[in-house]
């Protein structure tokens, strides 16, 4: 009964969304944003209701009629879908809310504003669809909608050549991802004759698992930004508006993760091998992402690479889960998948929080180069504290939610050490080392970012930066509240999401109970830590009340005219790290030497920047070779109308001849 109501509601809402979308251009500029928000709220409301029912133990399934081509399309909300739906809805809503204030301050034309809001609504809807649809053709359509709407969101607000170029790179990559997924689905369709997702399960039971899963892994991995599939995506975020970047990095990247998890759920054999592949790939991804995040001085790019790092951590969980499934080891299985899903939630929260707060900074200062900033804590204290909270959480440090999921993954890794085979022990010890290095470098990355942007003195002159309006800060506070909620309610989260991957083959209770107990303990202990901090702080306040508190300049080490330009920059903070990892990060410098025999050399410029290894040593080399190769085919597209007519004639002739000789199979 409830399912039926929900089914009707969903259909009605999808219909009305299109009406809203059509109405947005007609509204006054002021109302466009709110119309978009209302559309998102309506959609989110209905799918959240469905998700809630699914999490409560009653999954929803119904079929739509998709015309002759598609036949019946199964729409289903199970626990895995529900988990992702909740994340999508919450983050998109918060980001869009922030966007209302942000877009208002941009100088956009009426058409641009309309497009912006329409695209956000469509992006949200398409992500919802990706999670609920269980029909490959419909899924690919939704995937395409997501790729196109997100790409257009990147260019709608500015038409700089550079932005458009990056957006096109992004589009190509998204289509490559789409192409791999399509190949996978066509493969299944050819073998089983069905476009339903259930056909995948049939396929995996009767055919080899490895090759199809690898194809899907590449397809979804391109979206999820696994290294070396991340391509040029890190360049995309600095061009996007911050709330769009929050949606892209916080939610859309997770669609790739969703796809991998969905496919992994259908696997029948070869879990072990595939798990080892996913785990190794994730180690590389995590380490690569965080090293680049540490060296970049553009804070949007830093966050972009940090997304890659977190995808690596999530991937470690998935790989571990697969290995656990392959070996019939429930501890690895539940800790791996549970950690991965919890980290998906955590990462979406703190990454969007970080993007929204850095959005405040970029709006106030008009620069994304952290080495031009400094001292913003005094002018934007609320933004500063929010960023600090996000930074601590993303580093996986205890009082915040990031620690919970990382702790689960660590516990899994420790159990993995005990596996019988020596190569698995070695893989897990490598993972343990990598995860701890990742933790260490992320401390370096975020002390650097927070310190350079918010602390110290202002480095270069920019117009007076002011704190954002409460309306724009509120979404960030709400995200922070949810993050704090997770610290307390992590055990509940685990219980809620476990049915997403629980199988009867592996008993869950023996693992679940200790884990839930452990996480409850940890949240109590973090409270205890808070208590210790508070006690010391109170003692300190009491002591200082009776003592003289003076103000004096920072100790300049006997140098009497220190200036703000003498401060340590973000670049130099991470310089040593970049040098140590110089086999991974490529540093390029631009510094023309002065001509010989010039007594008074002219003013020169020095610049140095980091290049992406995978992009410059692999991707660019391959593409330039391809372009070179395709030059030889240029004669086909020569611009002469006569040749094109000739091609048509040849084609018709070929069809004619083939049908005469009955050659077309």
């Amino acid at each position, binding site marked *: 009964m409830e399912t039926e109501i929900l089914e009707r509601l969903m259909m009605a809402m999808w219909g009305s969304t299109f009406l809203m979308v059509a109405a947005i251009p007609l509204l006054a500029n002021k109302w466009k944003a709110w119309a978009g928000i209302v559309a998102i709220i309506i959609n989110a409301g209905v799918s959240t209701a469905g998700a809630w029912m699914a999490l409560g133990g009653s999954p929803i399934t119904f079929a739509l009629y998709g015309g002759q081509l598609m036949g019946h399309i199964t729409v289903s909300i199970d626990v895995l879908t529900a988990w992702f739906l909740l994340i999508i809805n919450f983050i998109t809503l918060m980001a869009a809310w922030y966007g209302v204030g942000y877009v208002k301050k941009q100088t956009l034309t009426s058409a641009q504003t309309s497009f912006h809001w329409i695209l956000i609504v469509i992006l949200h809807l398409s992500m919802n669809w990706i999670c609920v649809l269980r029909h490959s053709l419909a899924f690919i359509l939704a995937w395409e909608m997501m790729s196109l709407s997100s790409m257009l969101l990147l260019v709608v607000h500015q038409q700089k050549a550079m932005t458009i170029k990056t957006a096109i790179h992004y589009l190509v990559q998204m289509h490559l991802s789409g192409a791999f997924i399509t190949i996978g689905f066509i493969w299944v369709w050819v073998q089983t004759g069905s476009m339903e997702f259930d056909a995948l399960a049939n396929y995996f039971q009767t055919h080899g698992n490895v090759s199809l899963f690898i194809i899907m892994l590449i397809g979804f991995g391109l979206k999820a930004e696994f290294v070396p599939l991340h391509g040029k995506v890190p360049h995309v975020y600095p061009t996007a508006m911050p709330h769009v970047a929050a949606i892209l990095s916080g939610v859309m990247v997770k669609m790739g993760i969703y796809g991998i998890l969905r496919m992994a759920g259908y696997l029948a054999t070869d879990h072990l091998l595939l798990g080892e592949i996913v785990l190794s790939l994730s180690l590389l991804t995590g380490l690569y992402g965080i090293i680049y995040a540490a060296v970049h001085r553009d804070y949007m790019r830093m966050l972009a690479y940090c997304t890659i790092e977190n995808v690596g951590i999530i991937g470690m969980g998935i790989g571990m889960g697969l290995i656990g499934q392959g070996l019939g080891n429930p501890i690895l299985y539940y800790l791996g998948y549970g950690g991965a899903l919890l980290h998906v939630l955590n990462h979406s929260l703190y990454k969007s929080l970080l993007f929204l707060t850095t959005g405040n900074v970029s709006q106030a200062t008009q620069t994304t180069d952290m080495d031009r900033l400094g001292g913003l804590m005094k002018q934007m204290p609320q933004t500063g504290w929010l960023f600090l909270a996000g930074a601590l959480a993303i580093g996986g440090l205890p009082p915040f939610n990031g620690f919970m999921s990382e702790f689960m993954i660590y516990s899994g890794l420790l159990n993995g050490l005990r596996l019988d085979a020596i190569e698995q022990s070695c893989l897990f*010890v490598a993972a343990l080392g990598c995860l701890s290095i990742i933790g260490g470098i992320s401390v370096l990355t975020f*002390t*650097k970012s927070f*310190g350079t942007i918010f602390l110290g003195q202002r480095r270069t002159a920019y117009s007076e930066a002011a704190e954002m309006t409460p309306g724009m800060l509120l979404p960030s506070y709400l995200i922070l509240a949810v993050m704090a909620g997770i610290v307390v309610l992590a055990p509940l989260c685990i219980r809620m999401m476990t049915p997403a991957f629980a199988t009867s083959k592996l008993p869950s209770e023996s693992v679940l109970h200790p884990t839930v107990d452990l996480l409850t303990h940890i949240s109590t202990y973090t409270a205890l830590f808070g208590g210790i901090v508070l006690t010391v702080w109170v003692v300190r306040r009491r002591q200082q009340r009776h*003592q003289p508190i003076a103000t004096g300049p920072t100790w300049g080490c006997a140098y009497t005219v220190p200036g703000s330009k003498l401060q*340590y920059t973000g670049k130099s*903070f991470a310089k040593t790290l970049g040098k*140590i990892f110089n086999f991974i990060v490529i540093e390029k410098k631009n510094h023309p030497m002065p001509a010989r025999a010039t007594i008074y050399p002219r003013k020169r410029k020095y610049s140095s920047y980091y290049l992406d290894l995978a992009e410059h040593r692999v991707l660019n080399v391959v593409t330039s070779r391809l372009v070179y190769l395709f030059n030889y085919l240029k004669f086909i597209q020569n611009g002469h109308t006569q040749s094109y007519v000739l091609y048509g004639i040849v084609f018709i002739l070929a069809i004619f001849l083939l049908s005469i000789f009955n050659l077309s199979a």
Partner: protein
Amino acid sequence: MLSLVLIFIASLFFTGIVIRTKSLASGRKGPGVMQPLYDVVRLFRKGSVYSPTTTVIFQVAPTVYFASVVMAILLLPMGQMPGVLSFDGDFIFFAYILALGKFFNIIAALDTGSSFQGMGASREALFSMFAEPAFFILMGSMALLTGHTSFHDIFAELHLGSTINYALAGLASFVLVMIAMIENSRMPIDDPKTHLELTMVHEVMILDNSGFDLGLITAAGYLKFAMYGTLIVNLFVGSTDPQYAIPLFFAIQALMAVSVGLIESFMARFRMSHNAQFIVALSSVALLIFFGVLLVLNKLV
């Protein structure tokens, strides 16, 4: 609980012994063993000076740093007695809570806007980052050896029976001593007595702290030393009865303090650029322990 009390007692004289050893080694009489304690008490009763560049972060940081060390100490066991808090995977919490303290210490240094402090902060972040995998691989190997994942269970189950186990314990104490040196910013990674800001790591970070805050940081340093000493003690006294374990605890702590003093008297600090290599080498030693454990468990051959 026992460990908490013992660590607090050990921290009172640990640094004093180090300083005394250094004085004697250089032919001076040196201050009394309790002098560092008096210094801290004095700091706790002083007023403070704050730079106008700093924000409230600078004032909060020493508190968080101190609290993080206290929290970490609560997790440590002593022989048969578990720590105040003990749960599976507590050493992960231990490492991360210390990282939190370090995080605040680093941003406090950046808050002063001084280039020297930024430099120290950068080095501290880098060195402790490289020390992290060594600690995790070491603890992971011991977890593998004993089949437990909490400090107390690991150390209580650790029986030093065979020769190879002694070799492993030797390597493990080497790694732990070195991690202690890195985390406490002592020789050969960092020279606490250097007079030039450019060559400092930890000392330059706290140049701007004064009064109560400096007292907190110094006290946290003392506690940290005793804390790592306790880890090493635990390696050896896991299954010993308390009446022998407690004297052994003080003996090993004192031994460690003396050897720190001797190292600082007769060694020069490494070149800054060699520090990273040295610390990475620690991870390899930790890996060696891991393979040793595999050997013990008959997995390797």
